[in-house]
């Protein structure tokens, strides 16, 4: 399995705080990789550093075989797109105007709307089902639609790799599934490499081909969710006692925490392991 992105000995600090320490990671090409971990464990920091939004204290990020620090920011933008957490668009900007911006790395001051640009933008609007809404202001859309608009922008950027920092936080469940289904489809159809930070462990297990658990400034475990996620991992990474059982719809690991709540079972059936 070739890697789209690799980190070698990556260390990142905020001032004196060491967030990530000498982390080695290989992100598989053409798959969906999800970073999970407790709040503040550094998963967003790691993603942002890979996206070159943050400069690492030491170590390297390698993009398609080349050190990212040696590439111009424009070259990187042609290979990798990033959707940061809670992006905001200026008041009144329409969906079309936003998605057009995705073409930025491919344009020059003279060539601002080539046929290629037009095609990619239209494809992005189609893939995110926003064609009917393209003249609406972004701030007038629902949470799910707005997020789709931002994703459409990154699609128009036409990169092999898509990074998303908590794309589903603040969305209600319907919209969370809407976004994750979209990303899953894009990966299936177009084989784009997707790397995202998700805070919902169960959704992560359902959509990720490759899951990376971050703890103590390093990769604690990584691999297929069904190989990696179990009681002891969840306890170690999230300090939470839970049952891990196959999801009844998808078969992927479903984590059910112990704790308080109304127990209405007549018989409690527990599987060990």
């Amino acid at each position: 399995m070739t890697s789209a992105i690799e980190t070698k000995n990556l260390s990142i600090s905020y001032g004196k705080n060491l967030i990530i320490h000498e982390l080695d990671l290989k992100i598989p090409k053409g798959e969906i990789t999800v970073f999970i971990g407790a709040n503040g464990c550094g998963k967003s920091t790691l993603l942002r550093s890979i996206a070159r939004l943050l400069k690492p204290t030491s170590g390297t990020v390698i993009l398609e075989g080349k050190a990212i620090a040696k590439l111009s920011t424009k070259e990187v933008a042609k290979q990798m797109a990033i959707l940061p957490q809670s992006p905001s668009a200026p008041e009144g900007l329409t969906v079309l105007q936003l998605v057009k911006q995705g073409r930025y790395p491919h344009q020059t001051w003279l060539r601002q709307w080539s046929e290629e640009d037009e095609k990619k933008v239209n494809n992005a609007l189609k893939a995110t089902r926003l064609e009917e809404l393209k003249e609406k202001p972004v701030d007038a859309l629902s949470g799910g639609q707005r997020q789709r608009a931002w994703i459409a922008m990154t699609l128009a950027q036409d990169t092999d790799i898509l990074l998303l920092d908590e794309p589903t936080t603040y969305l209600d469940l319907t919209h969370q599934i809407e976004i994750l289904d979209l990303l899953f489809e894009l990966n299936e159809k177009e084989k784009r490499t997707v790397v995202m930070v998700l805070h919902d462990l169960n959704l992560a297990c359902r959509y990720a081909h490759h899951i990376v658990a971050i703890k103590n400034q390093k990769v604690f475990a990584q691999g297929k969710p069904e190989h990696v996620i179990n009681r002891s991992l969840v306890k170690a990474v999230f300090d939470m006692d839970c049952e891990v059982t196959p999801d009844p719809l998808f078969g992927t690991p479903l984590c059910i925490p112990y704790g308080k709540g109304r127990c209405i079972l007549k018989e409690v059936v527990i599987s060990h392991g």
Partner: protein
Amino acid sequence: MSKYKNLRLFNGKMSLLIDRKAAFIYTTLAIIAFVVFVISTGLGEMKINPLTVVKVLLGLGPEMETLVITSFRLPRIIVALTVGISLAIAGAILQGLVRNPLASPEVLGISGGAAVAVVGFMSIFSDQNHSLTVSIAWLPLAAFIGASVMGVLVYFLSWKNGVPPIRLVLIGIGISALMQAFTTFLMVTGPIYQASQANIWITGSVYGSNWTNVAILVPGAVILIILAILATRQLNVQELGDDVATGLGDNVQKHRFLLLMLSTALIGISVAFAGTIGFVGLMAPHMARRLVGSSFEALIPTSAFIGGILVMLADLIGRTAFSPLEVPAGVFTAGIGAPYFIYLLFKTRNS
């Protein structure tokens, strides 16, 4: 008719997407600006009808009217138009960079810096008889330098791993207040002649504009305006936030600095020839956004013409409404602008 027009020339080597509705709006504003220009030129102590004005502009007018227009009125109205356009574009750029509709040349201390430079210039280069020891032609340069120095200073003081917009605004407001205090101090401790001269100038006036001024101002402004138009894509992408802009391949810090300097140059050149005409850089882009939205392709021309119209009207009222008194244009732009600013503050108080 579709909403957009694809403009593709030279076999695709040049391409642009034009929003028809926005184009209609700024073209209409351009026509209004021209009409205001012609009418304004015709008004004053000697009233000249618009048709005659157009004849004079074409070089076919009667001698007396041509003299009045070309010697007294044209330079001043051209300066008013150019300054209005420049301040409006500068304000649009600042608001895009700082991502805050309250950002403007005054708020960020840049106009204040120019004001200090001018009053300082007049203090330093005056002798006992209260007259200037150097040519007044150096005054515009002093204003320009003051604006640029303040622009750079505000930028570097705001630097902290890049320039977060909020810091830029806060530091700008602080510096602005400091500059105002300093200016008042210089005026109070200086000779009386200076204080009243400086005061008129600071309020913002195009009184006394001549063709020399125009010859320096207009080419300079045109170059800067062209640069602003060339920077449209960078402006658009910066509005999306630093992270998104970097992700799209923009060199955010470098472009932010250059755009700030471009804005400062536009402000400096305006302040040099017309004093601090306040609030145009705040109101014009704001009104423009209401009309054509936040995309800079339309925002720049729309703000520009609104700014030009505002200053020309302010000057027109100032020199005709209180005849024979001349009230500086800055009084009227502040008269509409200050309540507008307060209204904006009031509206955004919940966000």
